C-alpha cells in the first residue's frame, strides 16, 4: 500500500499581463483591466501572421539577481525565479529545509526562452564572414525548455527532485500535478511548482493556424 499523505498549498505568486502578485491581479480582474494589447512589431513575423494581439508583462519589476545567477537566465527564468523567491519566503521554509533534498521543483515552460533562441538562430542563418561564433557558452542554458526549473534549483540551492514539464497550456497544471504526487506518495516533503513563458512573436506564430 503506497503511502498517501494530504497535500496542502502553502504559498503562491504570479507575474502576469494584468499584474504581479495576488492583490494586483485581483484588482485588475475586478476592474476589468485587460493585459491584451496590439501585437508588437518584431521585424520578422508580425506582418505575416493572423494574430493582431498579444499579452505580456510590460511593467517594470525590480529584480535583484546577481550576475552569477543572471548569466544563465533568459526573460522566462526571471519570471520563474522571482515567483520562486516569493513563494519560498511566503511559505516560511528555512534555508536548511530548502537545501536538504526534501524540497523538489516541478516547473516548466512551453518554449524556454524564444527571445534567446531567436538570437541563436539569427547567428545560424546570417552570412558570417568570420569563423568565430557569437553563440555564447550560456545561451543554451538561457534558452532551453527546462531553463525555469534549472535556474530555480541553481538560485536557491534546491537539491531534491527536478521535473520540467513542457506541455503547452497545461505546463503549469501538469507541474502542480507532479508536485502533488511527489508529496502525496512521500517522494518529497514539499514541492515548488509552476510554469512560466515569455512573449515572443515566434510563439504566437506557431499557434497562428490553430
Amino acid at each position, binding site marked *: 500500500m503506497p503511502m498517501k499523505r494530504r497535500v496542502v498549498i502553502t504559498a503562491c505568486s504570479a507575474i502576469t499581463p494584468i499584474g504581479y502578485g495576488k492583490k494586483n491581479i485581483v484588482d485588475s480582474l475586478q476592474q476589468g483591466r485587460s493585459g491584451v494589447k496590439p501585437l508588437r512589431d518584431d521585424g520578422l513575423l508580425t506582418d505575416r501572421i493572423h494574430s493582431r494581439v498579444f499579452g505580456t508583462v510590460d511593467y517594470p519589476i525590480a529584480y535583484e539577481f546577481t*550576475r*552569477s545567477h543572471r*548569466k*544563465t537566465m533568459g526573460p522566462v527564468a526571471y519570471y520563474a525565479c522571482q515567483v520562486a523567491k516569493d513563494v519560498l519566503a511566503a511559505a516560511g521554509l528555512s534555508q536548511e529545509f530548502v537545501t536538504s533534498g526534501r524540497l523538489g521543483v516541478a516547473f516548466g515552460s512551453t518554449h524556454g526562452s524564444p527571445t534567446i533562441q531567436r538570437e541563436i538562430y539569427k547567428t545560424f542563418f546570417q552570412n558570417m564572414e*568570420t*569563423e*568565430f*561564433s*557569437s553563440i*555564447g*557558452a*550560456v545561451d543554451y*542554458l538561457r534558452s532551453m525548455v527546462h531553463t525555469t526549473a534549472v535556474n530555480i534549483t541553481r538560485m536557491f540551492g534546491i537539491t531534491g527532485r527536478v521535473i520540467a514539464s513542457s506541455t503547452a497550456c497545461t505546463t503549469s497544471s501538469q507541474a502542480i500535478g507532479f508536485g502533488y504526487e511527489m508529496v502525496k506518495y512521500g517522494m518529497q516533503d514539499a514541492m515548488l511548482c509552476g510554469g512560466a513563458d515569455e512573449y515572443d512573436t515566434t510563439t504566437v506564430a506557431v499557434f497562428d493556424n490553430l
Partner: protein
Amino acid sequence: MTRDALQEKILTILVQDFEFQQPGLDDNLRDVHGFDSIDAIELLGKIELIFGFSLTREEKEKAMEIRTINDILDYLEKIQQGRA
C-alpha cells in the same frame, strides 16, 4: 597589441561584462570573483573578438591553466607571439 592595451581591454570586459568589483591583477579569479568554467568559455569568445581570429583547440586548452588576470595577459601575449 601591447600588454598595457590588452590589460585595458580585459579589465573593461571583466568589469562591464563579468561585473568584477575592483579587480586585482593577481586576484584568484574563482576565489575572489566567482569566475567559473562557463565564464572562462565566455571570456575566450570575447578574446576571439579582440584578436579578430578564432582560437585553436590547443590554444583554448592552454587557457585552463589561467588563475589570475596576469595569467590571462601572459596567455594573450603568448598567443600573439605564436601567431606573429
